[in-house]
């Protein structure tokens, strides 16, 4: 999802757990929230930092493919809406960074690990946004997939993470609707506009399915994370739910999901569909997607170019504080 392939620490059997670890697991099983200064296993803390950090980085890097179209939006209304949407993503990144900081890591440290490649962001943002219809597809599919994952995370065991998710989910639904609104406009426009909408769906469908991470049978980190309730549903459960929700929406638009194996399966009460190309997924995660270099390069440049500004404001604040002390 926004956090894919998060390596989970721990995985102890009950016999291997210390009494403190057992008491901790029991709190989670009872549905209690864990709060910042309370005792927690080191593995829980580390796994959460990794997951929340990756989630936050995804929000921040996710601004880039959409930011690309702010100056090219077709109308002033669309421009203002897209600007507000991208601003929300910045906000979501900040909520998550500050929630992660309660675990004893600073935002600058998290950013450093993004910039040096130690931490990842979602694979989806390594694909280009080539046309205006892509902005529709991103809101509809990418934010739609994100919501699917984030709604259950409002019940996650770590208090600050759960509370950040509540704020994010409230705002996320605007994102998906604005995307679908663009798709409706394009799909009901000229033949050329409709073709652009279809092309955007063709290119974003499988990358959107990849957002949920590898198939459950290959997902080695799920069990521990689910026991800790920092992951609520399995990758395949969420992917299935996403497909079932999205197919009728595509139909309404008069667009075709690019999967010839897609069909309703009465028995399971859901759609059968093709898996995305997992080799492509692992290649993108490893840094070989179409835009990895450009995205990370843009983040590092923004950070480096902003150094004088951050330092300048800090110097001003220190000088003002000294002056206040002198006056007292």
């Amino acid at each position, binding site marked *: 999802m926004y956090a894919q392939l998060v390596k989970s620490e721990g995985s102890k059997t009950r016999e291997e757990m210390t009494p403190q670890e057992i008491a901790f697991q029991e709190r989670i099983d009872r549905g209690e929230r864990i709060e910042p200064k309370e005792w927690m296993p080191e593995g829980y803390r580390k796994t959460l930092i990794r997951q929340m950090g990756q989630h936050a980085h995804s929000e921040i890097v996710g601004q880039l493919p959409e930011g690309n179209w702010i100056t090219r939006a077709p109308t002033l209304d669309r421009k203002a809406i897209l600007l507000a949407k991208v601003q929300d993503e910045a906000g979501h990144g900040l909520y998550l960074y500050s929630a992660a900081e309660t675990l004893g890591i600073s935002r600058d*440290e998290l950013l450093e690990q993004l910039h040096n490649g130690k931490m990842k962001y979602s694979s989806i943002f390594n694909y280009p946004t080539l046309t205006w219809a892509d902005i529709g597809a991103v809101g509809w599919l990418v934010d739609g997939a994100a919501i699917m994952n984030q709604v259950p995370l409002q019940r996650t065991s770590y208090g600050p993470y759960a509370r950040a998710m509540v704020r994010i989910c409230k705002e996320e639904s605007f994102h998906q609707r604005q995307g679908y609104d663009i798709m409706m406009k394009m799909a009901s426009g000229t033949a050329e506009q409709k073709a652009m909408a279809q092309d955007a769906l063709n290119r974003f469908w499988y990358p959107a399915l990849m957002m949920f991470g590898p198939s459950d049978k290959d997902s080695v980190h799920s069990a521990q994370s689910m026991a800790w309730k920092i992951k609520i549903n399995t990758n395949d459960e969420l992917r299935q739910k996403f497909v079932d929700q999205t197919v009728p929406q595509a139909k309404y638009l008069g667009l075709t999901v690019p999967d010839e194996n897609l069909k309703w399966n009465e028995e399971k009460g859901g759609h059968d569909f093709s898996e995305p190309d997992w080799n492509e997924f692992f290649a993108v995660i490893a840094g070989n997607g179409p835009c990895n270099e450009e995205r990370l390069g843009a983040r590092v440049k923004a950070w480096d170019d902003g150094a004088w500004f951050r330092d300048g*404001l800090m110097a001003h604040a220190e000088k003002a504080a000294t002056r206040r002390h002198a006056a007292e």
Partner: protein
Amino acid sequence: MSKNEWPLWEIFIRGQHGLNHRHVGSLHAPDAEMAICNARDVYTRRNEGVSIWVVRSNDITASSPSEKGPLFEPANSKVYRHPTFFDIPEEVGHM
């Protein structure tokens, strides 16, 4: 990495209905004035507030989780602090 990381501020917002300021989260800013500007952008993009308080996270003293017992358990046994502890006959009417 910059050694000069902006300090962390805790943000409190008063919603629109005459309620208390409520803690909504935290953010980084070089000084109090910028913390308010940033809080406006991060926490009130949809009219969530009419007033903002900011305070340096370092200036907050919190009770520790291990003090939970000594601090809060004494109240458990004092059920008479709740009005429902007292049975008032129905004839008396609303009280």
